């Protein structure tokens, strides 16, 4: 049982891609930057900056949420405790929680009148990360839990028989469940990067006077274009968003495959 092979997979699947691939992804997106496709009424660097903010906020939120959710899913998958079904129900309900309500709750928390007011977080990327963390955590936890629970009992028993510690067994199960967990992370990422309700409220959709985004994401930029009746440019930004999600999905799936080959 090559337990060692799990170790390199873990940072690759969870922590590392966020740091390593963020600039790379932005580079990719700027290569097919839009002047080539269409003459958009945007200033130099505008589209690039909203792509950057979108990725920065959503990838950070999903990375933090993964570090939080996957251990919970593993622990829940391995133990039986009273109220486990209820806890599952709560998590599943969280998957359907409206993003605009999450935005309001986070706003109440970070507003200068709220409990975290002293931190001055309102209309910042950190507040946006907080709200997307709340949004991404239920799907990541629920789908990871399903993946972990779905690992064949025999695999766990084999790991135990071979003298694995509890941690070893957990790592084996994680490895077996990696596709499910990758799906969970992608589902969380999809929820985070596509939501508009909460980032609009807590982020404020701000760009500088020079047209560089501070808290404007692709989704809030689309919302702004739609508000102004610029449906054409809104659609193009929508296409950029879809391309971006597709790219991230491809990268994550590829990382998963590499983990197998190793």
């Amino acid at each position, binding site marked *: 049982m090559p337990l060692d092979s799990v170790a390199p997979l873990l940072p690759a699947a969870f922590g590392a891609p966020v740091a390593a691939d963020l600039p790379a992804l932005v580079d990719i997106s700027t290569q097919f930057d839009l002047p080539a496709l269409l003459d958009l009424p945007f200033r130099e660097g505008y589209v690039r900056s909203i792509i950057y903010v979108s990725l920065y906020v959503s990838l950070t939120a999903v990375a933090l949420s993964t570090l939080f959710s996957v251990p919970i899913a593993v622990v829940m998958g391995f133990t039986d405790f009273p109220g486990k079904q209820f806890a599952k129900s709560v998590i599943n309900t969280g998957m359907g929680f409206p993003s605009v309500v999450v935005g309001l709750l986070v706003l109440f928390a970070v*507003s*200068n009148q709220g409990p975290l007011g002293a931190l001055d977080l309102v209309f910042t990327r950190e507040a946006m990360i907080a709200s997307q963390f709340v949004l991404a955590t239920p799907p990541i936890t629920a789908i990871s839990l399903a993946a972990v629970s779905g690992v064949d009992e025999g695999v766990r028993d084999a790991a135990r028989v071979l003298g694995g510690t509890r941690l070893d067994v957990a790592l084996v199960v994680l490895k077996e469940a990696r596709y499910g967990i990758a799906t969970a992370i992608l589902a969380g990422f999809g929820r985070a990067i596509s939501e508009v309700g909460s980032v609009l409220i807590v982020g404020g959709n*701000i760009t500088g*006077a020079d047209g560089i985004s501070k808290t404007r994401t692709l989704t809030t930029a689309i919302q702004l274009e739609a*508000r102004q*009746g*610029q449906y054409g440019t809104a659609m193009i930004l929508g296409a950029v968003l879809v391309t971006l999600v597709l790219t991230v999905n491809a990268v994550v799936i590829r990382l998963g495959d590499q983990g197998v080959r190793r």
Partner: protein
Amino acid sequence: MSIHRRRFVAALGAGAVASTAGCSGSSGNQDESGGGAAVAGETLTLTTTTSTYDTGLLDAIHTDFEEMYGVTVDAVAQGTGAALESARNGDSDVVMVHARGLEDEFLRNGYGVNRRDLMFNDFVIVGPESDPAGIQGMSSATEALTTIADAGAPFVSRGDNSGTHTKELNLWEAAGTDPGGDWYQETGTGMGEALNIANQQGAYTLSDRGTFISQRSEIDLTILVQGPIEDGPEILANPYGVMAVNPGVHDNANYDLAMAYIGWITSPATQDAISDYQMNGEQLFFPEAVSENPDFQQYVPEGWSGNSTDG
């Protein structure tokens, strides 16, 4: 409470350090720190309306302010009601809105100080060229609305507690009509979307002139009742005001920078820049802050009298 106390101590500490620095460091970079240096690097949060933001005015003029003081302006476009609410919660430093009634309430409740008249444009009643209710050229906005209501012609309302929505409700009230029924639709959207909805449904709507001009090329609606800029009724005037968040209520409000902003935006140079700002060859906003005969009434709520508060 403990947070406040800690902040207070921190402020004391900072003050002590600053005063010591002042005593010892008489050489050094004293000459560089004139004027704007006290606020350099800080961020001013401005909550404002969609009409000032979506027309591109703020982006066009803010660069000048940012360079002058070395600061950043975060403009959050929310609509008048939400902009004032953010300020009420202490989440912004300065507010630029267009609903005098709501502004007065905001001032009266102590949340805002130092209001200045900033600029104005006007509202227009727009609708399809076919004009099913027949309001074209009417000189009274209230009469036009009553006619639309009587005809049951479709009318799109913003329904979002914005300055434009507030104006629309005031107009219905002045017309003595209570809008309702299938023909009256509250969209809860920004002005641009409301214009698009009206366009698609062949409906009437009330729009600020700026947003309508900036979008006119995309839609088939036309101005049926003019505002005061084109000799329409005075009731369709759309004055914008700017005011600072009261630092006595929210001690985290960046009052110095807010007042620097108000001073800058009401200065002759910026007022000229507002006047020069055009879209599709048309002027969108008319400056109002600089006048040989200052309007003292602007500093107090409409109809305010000093005797009325204490008996």
